[in-house]
């Protein structure tokens, strides 16, 4: 699916502090054709790896280990990288959703997510990013 939008294999980073959910996301992404470069459990590690590896997609939990949360990490990453960020979180209170809305992101998935929702959300996120890249090169 999504990887066909590009000539190369898309690379994904997972920022998630629940190890089993990270494993599931990793396997599902691999089945969708992504190369998963890492799964980390803190915002700080997420920012460091995203800056170094420049992935195409980041699945970002909001409540994480460490000082920063996923919204702060997404904000920091999107300041200097054009990467698709999809939040995957069980937090859905108005305050969190409003904070997330203010950051550049391409999707929000509520945990526990449906398998079809994950695939659809990622596909839309990658199409949005592809459109952004096309817009810049034209």
């Amino acid at each position, binding site marked *: 699916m999504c990887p066909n939008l590009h000539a190369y294999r898309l690379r994904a980073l997972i920022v998630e502090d*629940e190890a089993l*959910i990270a494993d599931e996301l990793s*396997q599902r992404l691999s089945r969708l054709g992504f190369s998963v470069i890492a799964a980390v459990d803190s915002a700080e590690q997420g920012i460091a790896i995203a800056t170094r590896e420049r992935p195409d997609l980041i699945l970002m939990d909001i409540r994480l280990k460490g000082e920063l949360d996923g919204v702060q990490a997404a904000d920091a990453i999107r300041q200097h990288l054009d990467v698709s960020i999809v939040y995957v979180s069980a937090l859905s209170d108005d305050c969190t959703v409003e904070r997330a809305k203010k950051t550049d992101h391409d999707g929000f998935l509520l945990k526990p997510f449906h398998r079809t929702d994950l695939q659809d959300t990622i596909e839309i996120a990658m199409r949005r990013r592809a459109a952004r890249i096309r817009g810049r090169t034209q």
Partner: protein
Amino acid sequence: MYVFSASVKVFTAIASVTTAAVLPLVVPRVLALVQQAKATEQATAELRASEERKEALLREVHHRVKNNLAVICSLFYLQSTHTEDAETVQIFQEMENRVHSMALVHENLYRSENLARIDFAEYARALANDILGSYENPVAPVRLNVELEPVVMSVDQAIPCGLILNELISNSFKHGFPKGDGGEIKVTLRRTSGGACTLCVEDTGVGIPSDFDMNNTKSLGLRLVRSLTRQVRGAFELGRVGSRTSAQLRFKVDCYVP
């Protein structure tokens, strides 16, 4: 003029004497009232703060429940990747759907103002759409028709009712349209007299066999429906209404809002 001035002096003198006599009695009383008002205000603020803390704690509990249910779904998925058998994979997916129906109750509670009660109509609409998403066949779509009257119920009742609804809609998709044909599934929720309501799932699929016996079925889904119906002290019927298969649950709502 002299008379007037003298009257003023007398009046002032009387007023001073009266004030001097009354003030020692009134001032402590006024001070006591002010103190009492301050104490009441402080107690109200403390009560409000305590309510807010309790609410935040309850939201945190719902959040953690959702997160744990997400971990359970991950476990089912990870286990399902260790088999090539399509039937086994489907069993794990059905288990995931059941856990999702429970998580959705907590999601609705987490987002609602009342953290103990749930608008079942809103929940049922979201659940029906979720299930449609997991069985969707773009070639021959099954249309979902949802007619739900507002019914508010406790979490204790919403969980089993949600699980029942999950089984009934899933059964319609699986057994009503086994060859991937299109059709319609209709979900209705109606309030009836005496605080009772009827939850009904009908489909235009192939229909149940004429010799079908609800009490001796090997279907796990229908066995779950039977047990959960007992839990909500309801009555369940499965049959045909014209050309449609109709599954109907009647039960009394535990916190009914007309």
